[in-house]
């Protein structure tokens, strides 16, 4: 099995994250897709509570799909997914909702890439900004939903950290 590195151009040729996000939003939030992808960067004041959800893909191509947003955005997403006011949500539901969004993006990415054999369960983390929000990403997609942002990052695993065999 040969492990594959991918250029940004090749990635974007294979995966249309913006179209995928539009479909996910319409399906999960039960609202028409109204995402705006024109925001150039994700910037929030230091100390802002952030939440991320990540899934890891393993196989001929290996990497991570991670989504990142503020607590406020995560609560809005969970509220729409559960059709509940945000005040009625518990933290587990918010974590669950964001994890599921990451799972769906990761599953669709897995389906679009040849030879990816394993998709992990979602890992959800909370941390204050600035935290680990930068880095060298294969693709970064920033979507605005009304006044709040969500970031989707695709991070390719370095060659030396890859696993040639799938358990």
């Amino acid at each position: 099995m040969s492990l594959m590195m991918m250029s940004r151009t090749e990635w974007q040729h294979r995966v249309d994250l913006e179209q995928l996000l539009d479909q996910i939003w319409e399906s999960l939030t039960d609202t028409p897709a109204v995402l705006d992808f024109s925001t150039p960067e994700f910037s929030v004041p230091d100390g802002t509570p952030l939440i991320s959800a990540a899934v890891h893909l393993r196989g001929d191509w290996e990497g991570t799909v991670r989504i990142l947003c503020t607590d406020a955005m995560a609560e809005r997403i969970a509220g729409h997914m559960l059709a509940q006011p945000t005040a009625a949500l518990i933290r587990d539901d918010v974590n669950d909702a964001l994890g599921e969004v990451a799972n769906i993006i990761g599953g669709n990415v897995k389906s679009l890439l040849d030879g990816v054999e394993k998709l992990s369960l979602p890992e959800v983390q909370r941390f204050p900004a600035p935290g680990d929000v930068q880095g060298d990403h294969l693709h970064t997609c920033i979507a605005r939903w009304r006044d709040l942002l969500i970031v989707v990052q695709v991070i390719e695993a370095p060659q030396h950290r890859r696993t040639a065999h799938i358990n």
Partner: protein
Amino acid sequence: MRLVVADDSRVMRQIVIRTLRQAGYEGFDIIEASDGADALDKIEAENPELVLSDWNMPNMTGIELLNTLRQTGNDVPFGFVTSEGSEEMRDTAADAGALFLIAKPFTPESFRDALDPHVA
């Protein structure tokens, strides 16, 4: 009609149930299961007429659940609702005896297309 919805995400179980309703499937007796092992217990106890299951779950995956059911002689109608919709996954699901695979994100129309041939 009694139906088991298996997904480790409670949020996704609620969205599946909401989408069933939007697709016009009203009045189902829906039993929720939080993973494959929980679903296996509830299928054996409740004898449902249809199972809708996620694929990637802790404890027991959806395909392990389906294989276990068939190996024990249980032929309950079974469909996947999963984020992975590649041809390879669809072939694996069909070979194991699944009636359909609905890929997330889904719409009420995709539910109707998959379920109508199997729901009276």
